[in-house]
């Protein structure tokens, strides 16, 4: 029976056994599902198993055990059908160095069996979308790093496949290129593509992803939408404080709260604290009564704080 999920991973394990070295247990039995049309984030520190998961789902490497299904096709037993359903932007750069931008896109279209007229239409679209039109006759080897990365993403979006994997697609991009790429990801998802992305930029995951999974040492340590993930961490709040004057006593008081982050100047301070909301209100009350507080704003912790907290706890209590 075909799964209704775009991606289904069940007890996936992967063991690498390099010659002459100890085995590496890259994945230790992870399971998750991705709904069709969702933007799904796979987060984790370096070496967590994110890229291994992507490699298994894109049929680059077989799993040691478990099941990985993409668009209803088993990655191990139906690799060709699986590959027909997906496009991928790999973590490393990947382009035809000695072909032009247009040559890269045309070759890619041929490999994905896109008819010529349709390919030309889509190529024009992605050239515009990724700001590559003026560089269409430039050889890939002569492009800047950011342009090359954009070309890679443009190829994946050219394919029109139902599932797209982006393995750190915005790494190395400047803010403008990054924004272009993120907009393109949103647009592609709005057309119905399921997008799985890995990223180290947690603000990007926070901005884009419908659901997230946090992986560490081959295990899933958190799964859910953004709010569910944030609730898993110890509550944390960021206070933006404005004073008439930040006195040494005020500084001492704030530092004594053991903040996660703290920065200040003569009249302002930003501080992130892991406290309950009542405790936060108490601290603000104290600042207002005794420390010349003029204005304050309170924000819940961002994903990065939760991420670091979860990983720290994982180190203390490993799965």
């Amino acid at each position: 029976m075909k799964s209704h999920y775009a991606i289904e991973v069940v007890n996936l394990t992967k063991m690498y056994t390099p010659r002459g070295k100890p085995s590496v247990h890259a994945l230790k039995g992870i399971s998750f599902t991705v709904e069709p049309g969702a933007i799904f984030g796979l987060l984790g520190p370096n070496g967590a198993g994110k890229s291994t998961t992507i490699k298994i789902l894109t049929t680059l490497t077989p799993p040691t055990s478990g099941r990985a299904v993409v668009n209803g096709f088993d990655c191990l037993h139906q690799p060709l059908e699986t590959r027909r359903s997906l496009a991928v932007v790999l973590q490393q750069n990947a382009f035809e160095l000695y072909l032009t931008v247009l040559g890269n896109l045309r070759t890619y279209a041929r490999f994905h069996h896109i008819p010529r007229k349709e390919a030309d239409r889509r190529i024009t679209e992605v050239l515009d979308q990724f700001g590559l039109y003026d560089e269409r006759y430039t050889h890939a080897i002569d492009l800047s790093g950011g342009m090359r990365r954009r070309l890679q993403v443009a190829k994946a979006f050219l394919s029109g496949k139902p599932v797209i994997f982006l393995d750190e697609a915005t790494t190395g991009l400047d803010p403008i290129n990054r924004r272009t790429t993120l907009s393109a990801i949103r647009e592609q998802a709005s057309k119905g593509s399921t997008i799985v992305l890995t990223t180290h930029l947690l603000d990007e995951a926070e901005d884009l992803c419908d659901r997230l999974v946090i992986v560490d040492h081959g295990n899933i340590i958190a799964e859910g939408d953004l709010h569910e993930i944030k609730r898993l961490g110890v509550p944390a709040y960021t206070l933006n404080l404005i004073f008439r004057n930040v006195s040494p006593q005020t500084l001492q008081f704030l530092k004594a709260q053991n903040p996660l982050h703290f920065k200040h100047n003569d009249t302002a301070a930003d501080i992130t604290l892991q406290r309950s909301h009542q405790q936060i209100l108490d601290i603000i009350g104290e600042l207002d009564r005794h420390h010349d507080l003029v204005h304050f704003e309170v924000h819940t912790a961002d994903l990065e704080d939760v991420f670091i907290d979860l990983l720290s706890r994982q180190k203390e209590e490993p799965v």
Partner: protein
Amino acid sequence: MKSIPAVVYREYLLRTTSLTWLFFDLFMPLIYLLIFGIGFDRALSEGIMMEGQLIPYNEFFLGGILAMTSFGIGMNTSYGFFMDRDNGIFYEHLTYPMTRGEFLLGKVLFNCVIATVAAIIALGLGSWILGISLSVAHLPLVFVGIIIGTAGWFFFLMIFALRIRRNDMYNTIINLLYFIMLFASSLFYPLDLLPSWLTTAALINPVTWQADFLRYFTIGVGDLPQIMLQSVYFLIFLAVSFYAGTVIIRKIA
């Protein structure tokens, strides 16, 4: 099978739009033929003694040039493979909607086509400029030898491109292979002129098997029973290289 044309198209775009590739694929062996060959032809003005007859060096050398063409194209493709791995596009290719078999077939098909074109140029120039008289009735077999030879070299040299990760190591090994395999063979000279240890090494060298075959069917000189036996050896070499290459590519990522 519909991915094979895409692979061929990609190889065509890369190899025919670059002067560097075109030079090494099509013209490098001709430089050997037209410069090295002419020089040695003059130096060995009486010719080379083979199978009891004196033949001009150029005629002897043509068969070797055709073998060099095959080997050279295999080497160029191996280098292309290595560069593709190095710049990441090879791994992206493995995620495309095609089987590993289609991928390899497309590459080997392109290689065989370009080797055939290079052979036609070499045979044409050899006949026209150097006055080499060819055994026309056997030319189809020459092209069979070129195609099978090119396929064999493709799979053999591909193994090094897929197994070696370091650029310096790859370049060293491939250049060593080029030198040893081409010079410890019957490509440049008859084996009976060589010391026994070198003759032995040359007899177990697939370049010799291919060069002897091509030499016999271009100018009709050689030991036919020995050549037939060597052809079987080459087919075994092709089969083993094919098997090893396909196993490696399946495990590559």
